[in-house]
């Protein structure tokens, strides 16, 4: 599936996912995992702009490889993140987790390179399936339940998106995936927007994220935090730039996320809420919709994938080593896990927008762009969120995880952290630093090159302003460190309503079903059983005389078939989903080579 100037990264990931289960189990296969990301990095930096891999289906032209300046920058950072993420997970023996991650990443690349709504939708669903497995394969009862909720929620979101796509097709007779003007928006456009907003975790559709991500596998959540929401940011930037409602929604997200992050106790849930906040910056930038803010949103997505991946890696390393991610059970670990702490702090300072790190060159661009476009309130809201960011993710989480006012905890059993986890973190930390010091290596790939020169992060005032905001919000944390101390609690969020809706639907389905089931049982007891008994007597005579003689041999075969059948319908969601992905890929392959 490669032309002279184009290679689709998803192909490499899908092929790896297909062959991995059949490789012999001596662990040498793990090095092969690095091939797809390397191929993806090569492709992302060398693919030529244009429409590649077009195919005719149902009278439509599907464009699987749409390359332009916006899709390129996302493909690049996805490729880099997939390499760091796979290095971080090299020690994992569970092939299932790797296959899930590979499928998921393949879906991410497919979405970013999709030139039409149909192929976008196909890869969108592939992502949703892959990520469901990344949560489920944590193999605890709570993560299986969370995965089920996650899958249900994304299926509903996907169906809303599909409804929008199909309605839009009926009106416009095209699946073209391009900018939609906010002026004459019609119902299908809104449905598509809602479908996208589910994955972008726009408040109040966001609660799936802090529900699922803290319960994923240590390595799986590293992938998830990078791809789902940022794919959604990409599709929003492509289809809905300049939609005022997104500027408002993004600002609300930015503040909402930090408020919850400040009260949470679970380290990875703090980071999850903080994804909501950070994606808010990007959504707001897209909503403002000037060249500078779209640049800012893209730059922020790029920087965010790197440092959020690193944050999840750091928190994951603490969880892996200490066995808990609850802050109130941690503390006194700075000298026990010193390099985890340092690498985490690089990410924490990056996300806070500290000069020298990449958040400083991306976040400030979005804020300045919003202010210059006259969206003063958006800019001010984002500055507010920046204070909360530093307090929650930059200070609270590391302080209570690594210090917490406790002496060094020498007696705590810590599982040694494998070298590959450190390697994955180091790659991202170096990139966070390099982009902060040399913004050009990020800015040169931004979609609107003409607008890049409008903004210079490294002015003396920008540096002093950032240091003042961060320093004095640090003072606030110092004064209130006893007040903000986390403790065990569940903080109600919008998932309360999702669960209510789910239960209501279940109620309305279950009641009639139970009613008919009852009637049927009574009828059966009264009539059916009597008839059966009569028949049974007759057949037992026949059986004794004739059948026993013939059947004994075939009974064993029947039993074997029955066991196979039972295996196929055991109600295990993961196997059905796996089968669905497999069939979908086979159908895609057949279509492709038809």
């Amino acid at each position, binding site marked *: 599936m490669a032309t002279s100037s184009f290679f689709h990264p998803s192909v490499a990931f899908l092929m790896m996912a297909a062959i991995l289960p059949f490789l012999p189990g001596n662990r040498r296969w793990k090095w092969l995992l690095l091939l797809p990301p390397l191929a993806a990095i090569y492709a992302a930096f060398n693919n030529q702009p244009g429409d590649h891999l077009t195919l005719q289906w149902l009278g439509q032209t599907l464009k699987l490889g749409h390359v332009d300046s916006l899709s390129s920058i996302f493909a690049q950072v996805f490729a880099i993140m997939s390499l760091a993420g796979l290095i971080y997970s090299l020690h994992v023996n569970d092939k299932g987790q790797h296959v899930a991650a590979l499928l998921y990443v393949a879906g991410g690349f497919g979405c970013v390179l999709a030139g039409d709504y149909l192929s976008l939708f196909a890869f969108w669903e592939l992502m949703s399936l892959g990520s469901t497995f990344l949560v489920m394969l944590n193999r605890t009862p709570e993560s299986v339940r969370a995965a089920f909720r996650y899958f249900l929620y994304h299926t509903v979101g996907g169906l809303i998106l599909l409804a929008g796509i199909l309605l839009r097709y009926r009106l416009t007779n095209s699946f073209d995936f391009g900018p939609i003007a906010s002026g004459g928006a019609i119902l299908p456009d809104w449905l598509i927007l809602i479908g996208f907003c589910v994955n972008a975790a726009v408040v109040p559709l966001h609660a799936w994220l802090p529900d699922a991500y803290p319960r994923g596998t240590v390595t799986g959540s590293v992938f998830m935090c990078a791809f789902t929401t940022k794919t959604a940011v990409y599709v929003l930037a492509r289809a809905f730039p300049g939609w005022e409602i997104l500027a408002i929604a993004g600002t609300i997200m930015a503040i909402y996320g930090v408020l919850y992050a400040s009260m949470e106790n679970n380290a990875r849930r703090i980071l999850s809420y903080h994804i909501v906040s950070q994606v808010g910056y990007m959504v707001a930038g897209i909503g403002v919709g000037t060249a500078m803010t779209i640049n800012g949103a893209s730059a922020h997505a790029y920087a965010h994938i790197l440092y959020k991946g690193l944050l999840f890696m750091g928190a994951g390393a603490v969880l892996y080593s200490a066995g808990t991610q609850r802050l109130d059970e941690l503390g006194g670990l700075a000298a026990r896990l010193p390099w985890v702490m340092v690498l985490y702090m690089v990410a924490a300072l990056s996300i806070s927008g500290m000069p020298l790190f990449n958040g400083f060159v991306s976040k400030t661009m979005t804020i300045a762009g919003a202010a210059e476009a006259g969206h003063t309130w958006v800019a001010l809201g984002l500055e507010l969120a920046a204070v909360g960011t530093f307090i929650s993710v930059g200070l609270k989480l590391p302080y209570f995880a690594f210090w917490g006012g406790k002496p060094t905890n020498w007696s705590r059993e810590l599982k040694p952290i494998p070298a590959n986890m450190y390697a994955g973190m180091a790659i991202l930390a170096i990139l966070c630093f390099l982009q902060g010091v040399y913004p050009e290596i990020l800015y040169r790939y931004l979609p609107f090159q003409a607008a890049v020169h409008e903004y210079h992060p490294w002015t003396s005032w920008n540096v002093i302003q950032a240091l003042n905001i961060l320093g*004095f919000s640090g003072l606030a*944390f110092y*004064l209130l460190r006893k007040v903000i101390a986390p403790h065990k609690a569940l903080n109600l969020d919008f998932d309360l309503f999702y669960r209510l809706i789910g239960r209501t639907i279940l109620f309305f389905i279950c009641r009639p079903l139970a009613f008919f089931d009852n009637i049927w049982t009574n009828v059966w007891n009264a009539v059916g059983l009597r008839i059966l008994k009569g028949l049974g007597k007759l057949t037992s005579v026949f059986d004794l005389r004739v059948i026993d003689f013939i059947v004994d041999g075939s009974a064993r075969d029947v039993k074997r078939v029955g066991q196979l059948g039972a295996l196929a319908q055991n109600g295990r969601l993961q196997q059905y989903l796996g089968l669905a992905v497999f069939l979908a890929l086979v159908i895609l392959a057949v279509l492709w080579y038809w």
Partner: protein
Amino acid sequence: MPPHGENLGFLAKFLAAQLTADRIKFWRRVFFGALILVAALSLVIANHHPHFGYDQYPLFWSVFGALVGLAMVLLVKKIIQPMIKRSEDYYGDL
């Protein structure tokens, strides 16, 4: 120090040694010194692009950081969380 006298890397040794009362006092001084320094520098270096009106005044961003930080933490921990807090297994899973 570790009970078994195991070998520590330089970073672990350094971090372990920072938890004495003296060193904590030292780091506190460094922190407050840095705050005074950046606040003073913001008086010297002019803001050529005030966006919000009030940010043309000196020390606006220092006061903004401190006040927003204090207000946000107090709002979240003293008002919001007490209202929406439930036991950890409220939904039946931890």
